[in-house]
C-alpha cells in the first residue's frame, strides 16, 4: 500500500468501489491485431485435405494389420491341421470308429487266449 492509501480509511462500500474502479481503469492490454490471431487460427487448424488424408492413412494401416493378422491365423490353422493329420473339428466319427476297432482287437485277443489255454495239459504244460 502506498502512503496515500495507508492514511485513508474505507468506511463504506462506495469508497471501496471507488478504489476498485479508480485503480483498474488503466489496465490496458497490449493487443495483438486480429489478423495475426487469424493467422494463428490457420496455423492451428489442419486443412480438410490433410485431415481426410490422415483419416485415410489410419484406415489403411488398420486394414493392412487386420489382413496380415487374418493370414497369420489362417496359415497357423492350416499348418496345425496338416501336422496332426486330422481335422481340427471334432464333428467327424474318427474317435468312434477307433474305439470299435480296439474293441474288436480285444475280442480277438481273448479268443486267442482261449485257444491257447485249450492246449494245456493236466500239469498246465503247453502241448504243441
Amino acid at each position: 500500500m502506498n502512503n496515500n492509501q495507508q492514511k485513508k480509511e474505507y468506511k463504506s462500500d462506495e469508497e471501496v468501489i471507488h478504489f476498485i474502479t479508480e485503480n483498474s481503469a488503466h489496465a490496458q492490454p497490449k493487443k495483438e491485431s486480429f489478423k495475426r490471431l487469424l493467422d494463428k487460427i490457420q496455423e492451428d487448424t489442419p486443412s480438410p485435405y490433410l485431415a481426410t488424408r490422415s483419416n485415410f492413412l489410419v484406415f489403411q494401416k488398420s486394414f493392412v494389420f487386420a489382413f496380415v493378422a487374418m493370414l497369420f491365423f489362417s496359415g497357423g490353422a492350416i499348418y496345425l491341421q496338416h501336422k496332426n493329420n486330422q481335422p481340427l473339428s471334432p464333428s467327424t466319427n474318427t474317435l468312434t470308429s477307433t474305439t470299435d476297432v480296439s474293441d474288436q482287437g480285444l475280442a480277438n485277443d481273448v479268443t486267442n487266449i482261449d485257444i491257447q489255454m485249450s492246449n494245456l495239459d493236466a500239469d498246465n504244460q503247453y502241448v504243441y
Partner: protein
Amino acid sequence: MKNNESKDIVDLIKLAKKGDGEAFGYLYNEFYTHVYRYIYFRVGSWSSETAEDITQEVFLKAYNSFKNYSYSGTSPLAYFYTIARNILIDKGRKKKLTIERLDLKDTDIEEIPDESETRLEQNIREEKENDLHSTIHQLPKDQQDVIILKFIDGLSNTEISKVLQKSEVAIRQLQSKGLKSLRKILNKYE
C-alpha cells in the same frame, strides 16, 4: 464498434457464426479489453503477458466454437467470459499460475501508450494497480469473479449470473460479502 458503428451487433454475430473472420474481428476489437481485464485481475498481479496469452486463447476457442453460440438478446461478452473462466479453472487445476511480469519484446504488438503520463505517474499507477491486485486476491474465487465482473468490467447482475451460473440473489450476496471483505483488508493496512 469504434470503426464500424453502423454495423449491427446481431448481424455481426450472425456472420461470425458462419465463420466470417472479419465479423468476428469486430467482436474481438469490441470485447478484447473487457476479457483481458477480467483475466488480468484473476491471474494475479504483474502478469500482463500471461493475461494477454490467455485472452488470445479465449478468442481462438470462441472463434472455433462460435457456431454453437446462440444469441439470446444479450451481449456475447457473457459467452467470452464463460470461456475465459473455464480456461482459468482448467489452468488452475493444472498448475498455479506464476506471478511475474515480463517485458514484451514482440514488435508486432499494438501498444496503447499514454503519452501524457510521466514516469512518476506511471509508477504510482502501477503501485496502485498492484495494491488492487493483492487485495482482490485475498478474496475467495467466487467473490473475486463477482467483484471483477461487476466493478471492473461493468457487467449487470443478470449478466454475471449467466456467466457464473448462479442466481441473481447469490450474486448480490457474493458482491456484498466481497465488498465487506475488501474493506476489512484495505483498512488492515492502516
